[in-house]
């Protein structure tokens, strides 16, 4: 089920109508049922995988701390149970996401040295969100193993934590230490928070349906060309940069807004990433929940920044290559991860000076180079793209590139205005739900009502005729 469907609206409305009339424990059961309905709506077998992940991690964590013991770190065979969890989660992920990639590459490598390795590709459909919920579920067992969180005895709570539908398919990836306590404690309905959450939901829908889907059509057209002109290609890359940001941040905004209506706080996943002044700043602003996951569970266990420069560089590269591979079973994602790792390694040793605007523009251009690597799955085409020169451009190519660029700017203008304004302490739709308001500020309320109305009108009129899936559903 997708957010921008009437099916979802019906599910949301029905569960919400019942939810706040129930006691706390029954609310969790309702959330669990709603989450499984949400996830199994199109593919009824997907919840089986979700349940398997949940059950194994629940059982592993229980065994790590000893039966019925909520105190961390006292169980026997803790490491063995951690491995059960890790192997199960990576096993599922590997089987559904990476098996064909692995076989393809083994067969190719074999052929290169004259071995004929049978090709047994499975071509399985990738269950949406599997990378997100396996990582989230696994973080629970790792935290229990480390003693950062106690093992829970209530299976319903763990199942509701893993499957919580607002963020199930595309994050943000929530930690057990953050979301589980929210599942376990009683929640209250806050109309002021619900109002701000409503604004965030409409803003998310606007970003997805008006910005992402429209500029996504432009990007798709450009990336379908055999030999794009230099300017056309980079206009397409710009379109993709806007698409992926507005698409992914839209999902997060809607997820956070919906969760708030049920009394939950999900973490912010984006903080105006295209206003970053350098690679490190970018990764503090882009897909924050995934970046911090890799930082805490990969980079720091590898040694983090505590060793010498060579080891730190290696740790960064390993972390970013793994993060690239997390995005998809294709070499271009690995390259993309490597590219960002390299940017970080280089900028750790060089202190760049200059105006903030120049740094932002430079980082944005570097990010766009990364998006070209990310978007172009055909490596030979990628090489051809990098060989393109503005000197070979035709007048029509230049005009088309400029036309597409301006069209993308036009679609994304509200996004830029919002982000620049929020960066300089103006109204921030994304941050608003984090601020508690003791009494309504009526000017703000009327402005919100007008803004939501205008955005809804824009969705009705400007919604793309071509509905595109959320990009991160594929990861």
């Amino acid at each position, binding site marked *: 089920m997708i957010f921008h*469907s*009437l*099916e979802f609206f019906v599910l949301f409305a029905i569960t919400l109508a019942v939810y706040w009339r129930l006691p706390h424990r029954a609310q969790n059961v309702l959330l669990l049922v709603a989450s499984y309905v949400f996830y199994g709506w*199109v*593919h009824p077998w997907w919840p089986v995988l979700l349940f398997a992940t949940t059950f194994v991690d629940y059982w592993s964590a229980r065994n790590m701390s000893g039966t019925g013991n909520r105190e961390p770190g006292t169980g026997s065979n803790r490491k063995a149970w951690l491995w059960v969890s890790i192997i199960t989660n990576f096993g599922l992920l590997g089987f559904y996401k990476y098996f064909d990639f692995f076989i393809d590459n083994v067969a190719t490598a074999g052929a290169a040295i004259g071995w004929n390795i049978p090709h047994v590709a499975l*071509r399985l*459909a990738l269950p949406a969100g599997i990378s997100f919920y396996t990582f989230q579920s696994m973080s629970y067992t790792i935290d229990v193993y480390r003693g950062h969180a106690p093992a829970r005895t209530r299976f319903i709570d763990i199942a509701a934590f893993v499957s919580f539908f607002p963020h199930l398919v595309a994050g943000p990836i929530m930690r057990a230490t953050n979301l589980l306590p929210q599942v376990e404690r009683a929640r209250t*309905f*806050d*109309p*002021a928070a*619900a*109002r701000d959450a*409503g*604004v965030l939901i*409409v803003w998310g829908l606007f970003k997805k349906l008006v910005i992402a889907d429209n500029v996504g059509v432009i990007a798709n*057209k450009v990336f*379908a*060309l*055999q*030999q794009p*002109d230099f300017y*056309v290609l980079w206009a397409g890359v710009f379109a993709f940069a806007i698409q992926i940001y507005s698409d992914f941040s839209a999902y997060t905004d809607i997820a956070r807004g919906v969760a708030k209506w049920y009394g939950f706080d999900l973490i912010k996943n984006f903080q105006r990433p295209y206003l970053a002044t350098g690679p490190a700043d970018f990764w503090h602003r882009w897909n924050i929940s995934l970046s911090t996951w890799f930082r805490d569970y990969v980079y720091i266990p590898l040694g983090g920044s505590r060793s010498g420069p060579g080891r730190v560089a290696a740790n960064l590269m390993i972390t970013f290559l793994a993060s690239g591979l997390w995005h998809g079973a294709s070499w271009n994602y690995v390259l993309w991860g490597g590219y960002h790792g390299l940017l970080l390694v280089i900028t750790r040793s060089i202190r760049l000076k200059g105006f903030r605007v120049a740094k932002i523009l430079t980082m944005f251009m570097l990010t766009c180079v990364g998006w070209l690597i990310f978007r172009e799955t055909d490596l030979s*085409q990628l090489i051809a793209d990098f060989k393109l020169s503005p000197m070979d451009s035709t007048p*029509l*190519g230049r*005009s*088309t590139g*400029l*036309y*597409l660029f*301006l*069209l993308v700017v*036009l679609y994304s203008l509200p996004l830029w205005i919002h982000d620049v304004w929020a960066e300089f302490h103006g109204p921030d739709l994304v941050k608003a739900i984090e601020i508690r*308001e003791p*009494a*309504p500020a*009526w000017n703000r*309320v*009327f402005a*919100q*009502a*007008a803004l*939501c*109305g*205008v955005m*809804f*009108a824009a969705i*009705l*009129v*400007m919604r793309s*005729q*071509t509905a595109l899936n959320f990009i991160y559903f594929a990861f």
Partner: protein
Amino acid sequence: MKSGQVLSLVLVLAGTLVVPLGLRAVNSALPGADVRESYLPSVETPRPREPFDQPAADVIREVQPEFVVIGDSMAGIRIDPLQLTRATRTRVIGLYQQGSPVAYWYLVLKNLIAENDLKSIRGAIFFFRDDQLTTQVQVTPGSLDRVAREREPELDRALAADKLGAFSEVHRAARSVYQFDRTRVWFEPLFNRWPAEVVQPERPSELISAMNNDVFGLDKLRKFEGSDLAASTTESLNFARHVNDSLLPEILRLAERSHIRLAFIRVQRRPTPEGPPPQSDALKKYVEDLKAYVSARGAYFHDDWGDPDEPLSAYADGDHLTAEGRRHYTGRFAEKHARFFQ
């Protein structure tokens, strides 16, 4: 719960729903926004349309074909109507449209064949890939104009059910309340034209036209080494789930009413060097269900998958055959399906 906070929530929800009513006022204030409703009112915006291709209908009536082959390039690249005419000693015509969806094929059968006063027509042959007959691919506005009449209620119903699901009535109501389709008609061209006016102020329309034809023309797109239609999803291969919302029942009903025999030929996708292309279990099951469904309603069904006479060497790009492959296919088609032409 504080009543002021509840009121503020209600105000924002009300604002969201009420402000877009302003679109009605904008529409009525602007001249030219009142465009006629489309023949597919459930899924398309009101817009100017191309006229129905009456000359083509007249020519077909003059020819009085006995059999018609309908489809997209899969049909066009496999069947040479003249060769088939000679081989079967019947009058065969081909009505092909590259990249056309089943909605187009249905309108061809209805408006150019079944309701075109053809006394001699005996059969119609549809060529399709995998789940195309029950999957509504996106209908681009205007792409059906030349084969559509003023009203196409069956097609509208089927597309609405498929595109909008069980909530098509909600969409219809929203359209009627906010009239956003009418706003879109004047707003969208204005919005898309502005960048062209900046880039080429003296001839903005020429830039858009050159872009569509020269930069993004079909010949500029990447060639596919694999099959050129995306693999079907497991969901779309649930035949029972989709058949009643598809156009297939209407095609069968129309043919029965008009005493036209139907043949459905599922073409083979591009083979691998080792042999026929792989098929998922879901796809195999789908094809079995489709065959049982159309056969039970008196239609002829044939699946080309696994035909040893269609090796990879017979293919040009994607799922298309070479010119020699086409000649060979047409000849074998006449032999293999001779009974259908009797």
